[in-house]
């Protein structure tokens, strides 16, 4: 049994416009020492999935199971879950500028977390630990900076402080929700390095949420790609980067600057993210898919194993797409297979891509 096993998680919110189906059935697992990357664009359900695990999505309707060391996070009492939050599962959020309380000193915010879960620790001991942690995440002169307010820290330093806080109780699982998105590119690399190093040191499990496949290219053991609240492709890092199957994953890879698919200019994925109130029929991605076929509009594809490098199917590399399981990778042969399938499978279906991306 893995440290965290999420089975068929569904999350929806009642709003005045209708029911927003933010997550529509996602499963994943992660173990100590492992990193799971969850990738998707805004509204793909990647943040909601993980925040739901910790009960941070107020007012949500939740289905499914999320077993953490065998106990279901989704059904346990609020008090029990609260004792897991921060202590067993720590979170790092996207915007370090707004994620730290502006009116309290950085050190005090770390001390507060330590003493909440370990009340026997004295203030002095907790403070000493906060200083050590700040030093470990690379804050210079931590014994002085511990008494700074967040606004006296730069963005990168604030994220380091958030990481220090997340690590303060040696959690078994760290969930990092776009931890580098709000930072400068140079600082991004430093923060990612730091997280990788500390994860190894602490041997915790890490879930890294991002919209940028480039961010987790060096980090993730496994990757889950989400689109419109559903998983569309799941694979180990190598397979996902070199042998993507789902057209959305392929699109994400091609939209990374300097990737093999984009020789001269960036290739954006045309169209807008789907409505989560009235998601498209069939495959959620079909309105934006360049390989749309008739059945994509009517039938919903489920995750299924696709072809492995050595010719067999790989149960750990699964994709929810009607294209043949051989249509893998960015090479011309794969493109040939795709075009062949489309030539047979498309008689009436059209989408915005085939109508011309110019209109977007």
């Amino acid at each position, binding site marked *: 049994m893995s440290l965290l096993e999420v089975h068929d998680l569904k999350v929806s919110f009642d709003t005045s416009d209708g029911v927003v189906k933010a997550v529509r059935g996602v499963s994943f697992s992660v173990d100590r020492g492992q990193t799971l990357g969850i990738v998707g664009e805004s509204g793909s359900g990647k943040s909601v999935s993980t*925040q739901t695990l*910790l*009960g*941070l999505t107020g007012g949500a309707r939740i289905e499914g199971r999320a077993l953490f060391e065998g106990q279901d996070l989704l059904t346990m009492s609020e008090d029990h879950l*609260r*004792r*897991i*939050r*921060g*202590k067993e599962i*720590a*979170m790092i*959020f996207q*915007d370090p500028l*707004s*994620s*730290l*309380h*502006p*009116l309290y000193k950085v050190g005090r915010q770390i001390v*507060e*977390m330590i003493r*909440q*879960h370990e009340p026997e620790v004295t203030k002095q001991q907790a403070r000493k630990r906060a200083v050590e942690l700040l030093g470990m995440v690379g804050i210079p002169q931590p014994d002085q900076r511990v008494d700074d*307010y967040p*606004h006296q820290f730069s963005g990168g330093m604030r994220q380091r402080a*958030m990481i220090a*806080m997340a690590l303060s109780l040696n959690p078994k699982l760290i969930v990092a929700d776009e931890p580098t998105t709000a930072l400068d590119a140079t600082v991004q690399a430093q923060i990612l390095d730091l997280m990788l190093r500390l994860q190894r040191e602490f041997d915790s499990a890490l879930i890294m949420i991002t919209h940028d496949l480039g961010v987790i290219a060096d980090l993730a053991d496994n990757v889950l790609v989400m689109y419109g609240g559903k998983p569309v492709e799941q694979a180990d890092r190598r397979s996902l980067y070199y042998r993507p199957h789902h057209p959305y994953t392929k699109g994400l890879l091609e939209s990374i600057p300097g990737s093999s698919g984009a020789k001269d200019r960036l290739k954006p994925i045309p169209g807008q993210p789907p409505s989560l109130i009235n998601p498209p029929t069939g495959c959620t991605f079909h309105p934006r898919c360049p390989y749309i076929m008739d059945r994509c509009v009517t039938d919903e594809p489920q995750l299924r194993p696709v072809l492995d490098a050595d010719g067999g199917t790989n149960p750990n590399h699964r994709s929810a797409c009607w294209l043949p399981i051989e249509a893998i990778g960015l090479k011309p042969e794969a493109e040939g297979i795709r075009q062949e399938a489309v030539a047979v499978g498309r008689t009436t279906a059209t989408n915005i891509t085939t109508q011309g991306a110019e209109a977007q």
Partner: protein
Amino acid sequence: MLRFLIRRIVFGVVVLWIVTLGVFLLFFATSKDPAARFAGKSATADTLALVRHKLGLDQPLTVQYWHFLTRLLKGDLGYSFVTQSPVNDMIKSALPASLSLILGAAIIWLLTGIVTGVISATKARTLLDRGITAAVLVGISMPAFVVALTLLLVFTSKLPIFPGPGYTALTQNPAGWFQHLVLPWVTLALLQSAIYTRLTRGSLLDVLGEDYIRTARAKGLPENKVIYRHGLRSALTPVLTQFGVDVGVLIGGTLVTETVFGLQGIGQLTVRSLTTGDLPVIMAVVLIASFFVVLANIVVDIVYSFLDPRVRLE
């Protein structure tokens, strides 16, 4: 901090000076001959001249204003045109009533406003929240004199718990002071606490949507710590700012409550001096009211810098 204080005090003095100049000019621009009022309708030209001379109104305006200013710098507000008594004494007797009324009411409305505001925000969109919202609407819409007269009717004649209108100095009889002020406090606090309930509710709801509140929850803090230590701490800053300004403004502006409850405060003095054209008293009450507004603003800024470490007083 010291530089800030000096700058603000200098600025405040300038504001007060402009206020006196404005009131002075307005007074003479709007009343043709102040002396005529005091001399009576059938006064002869001689009497009129005598009155004018006695009040100093026969001197050029610049000289009159200069006299006012030089006296003011010595702390002397002059003599009332009407009663001939020193204005300093009139202010001294009116100020304790006004301050007692406002500071007492302020404590009540701040506490009740924050408490109901927090309840309203944490139980947002529940029946309780809607009930509070309805009560607030009634509180805001109710004219002060209706509240005041109703309270007087119920608590002094139907159920004689409190004494009728009047004021007892705190130094003379603390119990009497308190008994006389309870109803005025409630009157004044009712409207204000309604406003502060809305203010606290809105501010706290805004803060509870902040990312750092999510961080506090993710840290595993219990909900009451999340709401009070992390939420309310931030939400109170705008509330306290408003509070300082309101207290300052109200010092000269609680006429209805003062009148109904027979409190001889600054509000009453203001109206009396305005209706009789008693220039020295008008100048004095305007100065006092402006002084408290200026003072409140300086205090608010200083308190703000303690509440929010991002604010530097430079």
